């Protein structure tokens, strides 16, 4: 593969490049935060690209980024289910590990000297469903509506998950030094 013809105008192939290309970074970023490692993220994005090409006809042209990220999410979820490492769901986390999870992992966090590393680690420690709304909101700058579309949840749920995710991050990172650093 690699040297096939590449038509650029008016063909599905060219249109696919034009539509998907600009959002490949967003797709990879999202996949990378969902999987938390490069190798899995690459696999997910590649599989998602296949699906995206197959279902190109289902693209609602008004928001190709949300469409592509939705496919990334489905791909990731399907893979995670397949590999028996099911995505960690909020409900599960909250029913059984609420207390434990709200405390920062002292060993993991104490080792992180750099603020940026501490923040990244904190976000990675969030349950999947919290982590994704933070990433889509803070890194991709998506609206509640877009996040709702990508994650397949109502806008009210987007709002409450964001709120709870932020509470957790504040609890993990400690509110006092943060406010001081940020101001």
């Amino acid at each position, binding site marked *: *593969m690699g040297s096939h013809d590449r038509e650029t105008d008016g063909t*599905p192939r060219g249109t696919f490049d034009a539509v998907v290309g600009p959002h490949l970074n967003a797709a*990879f970023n999202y996949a990378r935060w969902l999987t938390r490692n490069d190798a899995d993220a690459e696999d997910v994005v590649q599989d998602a690209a296949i699906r995206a090409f197959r279902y190109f006809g289902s693209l609602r042209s008004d928001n190709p980024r949300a469409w592509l990220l939705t496919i990334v999410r489905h791909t990731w979820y399907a893979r995670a289910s397949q590999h028996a490492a099911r995505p960690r769901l909020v409900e599960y986390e909250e029913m059984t590990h609420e207390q434990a999870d709200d405390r920062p992992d002292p060993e993991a966090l104490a080792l992180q000297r750099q603020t940026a590393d501490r923040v990244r680690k904190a976000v990675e420690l969030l349950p999947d469903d919290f982590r994704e709304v933070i990433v889509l909101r803070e*890194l991709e700058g998506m609206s509640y509506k877009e996040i709702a579309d990508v994650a397949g949840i109502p806008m009210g749920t987007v709002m409450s998950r964001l709120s709870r995710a932020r509470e957790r991050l504040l609890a993990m990172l400690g509110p006092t030094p943060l406010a001081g650093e940020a*101001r």
Partner: protein
Amino acid sequence: MTCNEAAGMIDPYIDGELDAADATHVAAHLETCAACRRRLDEREGLRQLLRGLPHYDAPPRVRVAVGDVATSIYVRRRVQTWMAAAATVVLVAGSALGVRLRQTANATSTIAEAVVARHVEALAGPQLIDVPSSDQHTVKPWFQGRVDFSPPVPDLAAHGFTLVGGRVDHIAGQPVSALVYKRRLHVIHVFVWPASNGARETDERTVRGFHEQHWTTRDLSVWAVSDVNEDDMKMFANVFASGS
């Protein structure tokens, strides 16, 4: 607005998701409530920190892989479309020839389809031949100055194939010489053009009921197509190739 109401709106407030009326109410409440103000400050501080999160961009190899994936699906789908459109596509299977065919199947399918398409269009069109002649020594020189190669124009009358004439045509965007022979009432088209970079391919197939014979002679690519029966088509290809 109570503290409880305001607290529930802090997140959509800093995310710019409140409508104007609610945003005004929250702003007014924040003026007077230190607890909610602190809640807001914490979140804005957090947002500052989250701005430092890495945005993982797609590595170049992922871009390449995605492009390859899309291209291969695209090519495969296009071939499938042709195959659905064609009544039959017969690939010569087995032998070394079969292996070579598979490698070039995509490109060859395109041409095979284009050749049949030109054959059908030309028969329906107004001008089948620009140089009407059964004399190979009239037809062959006619191409000089019209195409930049010299196509073989064998006299096959002794085998029951009558030369009718020729014209310049285009297939896949490149100029080709088109020769027209007849077998009884059947028209046989022979399209000739320079073979690409030394390719030596042989192919025979049936597309929408038309039989095609393809071979390379010296550095020229030859495609013969007709609605004559398969045996006649093979015979034509044999005598044409040996006579040129």
